[in-house]
């Protein structure tokens, strides 16, 4: 009757709260109530998408998306898009919320944040900021194949940052915890110790040295290795980028692309920040082994890319009412067998890189650049002076092949990943890894 091959709708309704402190003072409290919908329609080889918010009429929105799809298909006809079939999901094993943030008065949240902020304000720190966020969101999914499902997720978290200054220079230390969880997140993490650690990092970095740039062996800590696996490996395994010709992993399934010590996994069923019970296409979430024993095993798929390339859908995600896009969830390098001490012994001289201030990747060429929060020089197998302004750059495939040791101390970190203008909660992680040769940038 609509004359399209397929349509679906995501109706999202939620409340988000954020509190921002600056030097112990409340700088901002904001609360948003919203409801909206993202609707897609498929006609031949063309997608039409309409998003609306507020008090909308869902049928009219579906009509609008259908009109877009039909116009596109008439104007620029292209090969018909097929969608891999998917059974109705079963929402099970969802995270338990022990302390509903709705039941905690705003005064208590503010006080809590003030305590964390204060713990970061150690001697030498000139400025602190702290942020609290909470969201309680209900997702409803329905499509023209008769699927109809819903779930609700609560996410909370906090971040604290400290600035230390001296001799006209400034340095920053940061710590954060975000999770699919209620207010109990704060009982399970020693928030005050994290605040203090952020303050200590900032103070220590003031007297840190800058490294000499060049090629050398490095050890990456779990946070930085996690950022590497997310940015450089995870994005390149997203099937939409592969189909765009924008991934170094194109045509490499079954190929040894990494050291045989490396296993890379994406698992949305883990109760970490990137958790979801079903994705933005109503597909049950499941674990994907992206790299197995160093061999590229699988891309991450939507229903469309799974039909085109062969694979399992379940990694389609959308921020709010936006278009669903192939995304990661909880992505990590799996545990190996090495101990950190063994890595130090093996490396001899090199650099130990810790934490991340973000980075960027060109997944098409497989080139990346990350700035570490800090580093240490390793001399004769021992950790020596603290380094700052250290960055790591290079070629994804070379780094993967140069992994010579994988630790047994996997840790996950939460963050938000940007792609196509949409930010999604994700987590990434790794144990410590030793890379025999990498380009370290300094000043």
């Amino acid at each position, binding site marked *: 009757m609509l004359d399209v091959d397929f349509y679906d709708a995501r109706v999202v309704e939620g409340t988000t709260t954020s509190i921002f402190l600056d030097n112990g003072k409340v700088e901002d409290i*904001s*609360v948003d*109530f919203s409801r909206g919908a993202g609707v897609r329609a498929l006609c031949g080889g*063309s997608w*039409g*998408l309409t998003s609306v918010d507020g008090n909308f009429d869902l049928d009219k929105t579906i009509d609008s998306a259908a009109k877009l799809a039909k116009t596109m298909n008439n104007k620029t006809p292209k090969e018909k898009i097929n969608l891999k079939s998917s059974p109705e999901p079963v929402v099970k094993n969802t995270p338990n919320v022990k302390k509903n943030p709705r039941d905690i008065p705003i005064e208590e949240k503010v006080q809590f944040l003030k305590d964390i902020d204060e713990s970061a304000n150690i001697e030498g720190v000139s400025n602190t900021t702290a942020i609290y966020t909470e969201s309680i969101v209900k997702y409803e999914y329905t499509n023209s194949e008769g699927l109809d499902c819903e779930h609700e997720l609560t996410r909370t978290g906090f971040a604290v940052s400290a600035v230390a200054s001296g001799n006209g220079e*400034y340095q920053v230390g940061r710590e954060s915890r975000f999770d699919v969880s209620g207010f109990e997140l704060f009982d399970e993490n020693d928030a005050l110790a994290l605040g203090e650690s952020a303050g200590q990092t900032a103070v220590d970095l003031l007297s840190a040295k800058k490294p000499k740039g060049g090629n050398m062996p490095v050890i990456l800590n779990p946070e930085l290795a996690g950022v590497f696996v997310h940015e450089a490996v995870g994005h390149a395994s997203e099937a939409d980028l592969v189909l*765009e010709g924008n991934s170094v992993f194109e045509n490499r399934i079954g190929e040894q692309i990494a050291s045989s010590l490396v296993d890379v996994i994406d698992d949305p069923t883990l109760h970490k920040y990137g958790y979801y019970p079903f994705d933005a296409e109503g597909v049950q979430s499941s674990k994907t082994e992206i790299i197995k024993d160093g061999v590229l095993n699988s891309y991450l798929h939507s229903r469309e890319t799974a039909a085109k390339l062969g694979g399992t859908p379940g990694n389609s995600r959308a921020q709010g009412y936006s278009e669903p896009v192939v995304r990661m969830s909880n992505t990590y390098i799996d545990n190996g067998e090495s101990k950190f001490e063994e890595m130090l012994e093996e490396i001899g001289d090199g650099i130990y890189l810790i934490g991340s201030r973000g980075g960027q990747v060109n997944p098409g060429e497989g080139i990346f650049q990350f700035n570490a929060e800090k580093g240490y020089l390793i001399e004769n197998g021992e950790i020596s002076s603290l380094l700052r*302004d250290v960055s790591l750059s290079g070629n994804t495939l070379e780094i993967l092949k140069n992994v010579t040791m994988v630790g047994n101390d996997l840790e996950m970190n939460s963050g938000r990943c940007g792609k196509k203008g949409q930010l999604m909660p994700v987590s990434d992680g790794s144990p410590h890894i030793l890379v025999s040769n990498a380009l370290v940038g300094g000043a």
Partner: protein
Amino acid sequence: MYEMANKALKLAEDKGAEESEVYVLDNHSTSADVRKNIVDSSNENYTKGIGIRAIINGAVGFASTNLYNRLEDTVNIAISSARVREKDPEWVSLPSNTQYPTIRNTFDDKLVQLELEDCIDLTTQMIEGVTSTSDVMATSGSFSRFHDKRLIMNSNGIETEEEGTGVSGFIDVITTTDDKATAYDFKISRNLDLDFYEIGKNAAELAQKSRNGINIEPHKTDVILHPFAFADILENTLASAIDADNVHKGRSSLKGKINEEIATPDFSIVDDGTLDGGIETALTDDEGMPSQKNTVIDKGVFKSYLYDSYRAGKDNVESTGNAIRQSYTGTPSIGLRNFIIDYPQSDVISETDEGVYINTVIGAHTANSISGDFSVEARNAFTIKNGELDKPISSLMISGNVFDLLKNITGAGYDIRSVGGLVTPSIRITDMNVIG
């Protein structure tokens, strides 16, 4: 919109707000996406929502919604979050100045009337620009046009409603031969006056020229930064140093440096919310303060920080009209308007015997925004030899500090571009560290 805004102001006043403000945004945008040389999908977005600020004892509470039936709840939350906060004796007031500037070329009815078919045609032109060069493919890209209406009302008598339009094209390309090289190009305007074919062609030619890159040794040399690269670095370093909020909080290297020489004597920057057809041009900023022209750097000398009304009150100065909101769901922060770079122009490449030309950088957002230190990966970089671009460079990092960089500027090209609101030519910097 007026009725709803009025109702919210009235509610806030009744519930005890000393001052209040309503910000309503009504946006319609259309986009068409490119994937692998085809127009792949299209999007219509309708956004309409309301954000409410309530001020009690100088403390600001905020809440937002897109549901009219939650308007009263939203006002209540704004009031109660203002009450949770400490009194703020530094709060002065919301804007009340209604002397608006004259602005031009920020609304083009042709963009409002554009049909989806026309949007698809323009997107197709961009792809044709790419495929006019052999062995290059568009990997992704997008066409976008928007039309928005914004209403700002506050309890001090501000009542401003304005409409604006904009259009942009972005294309990412890759060579299809064995030696892979990528490039992108991007243009944006308030009016329907962009050459979409040209956007595609520029990106494709750049990717084509970037193949078979050579390696270079680490050294110090003259570096010319294309407007994309220069803008990217400034936005991630200097922009935060001139934000009055960062200055107050001890997060700016420019604290206490007003009237000091911070750049080479021929270098100036003006932040101008009234620029003819500027991407960030509007009658007012995002809290209703009239837009104006602010000299940031005058012939090397640092002149002014950028302010919204709250931070201006703290320093006992007038707001510079730099309150910016990302959406109706947040309170204003300080941001750049049209940020215009000025340096005497010349044929800068041909005047450079030896050096490096860099089109774009990746990783600029990882710069240390407080110290101004940056270390970025250069893309589509070329060696310069005897005043000409010579060979493409396969992999290159540049690092330095923005405040050193400002003092080492020795040239600018004729190629002024709008990179969003940042308007700049190519800029030459001497003695920059390049790591091959």
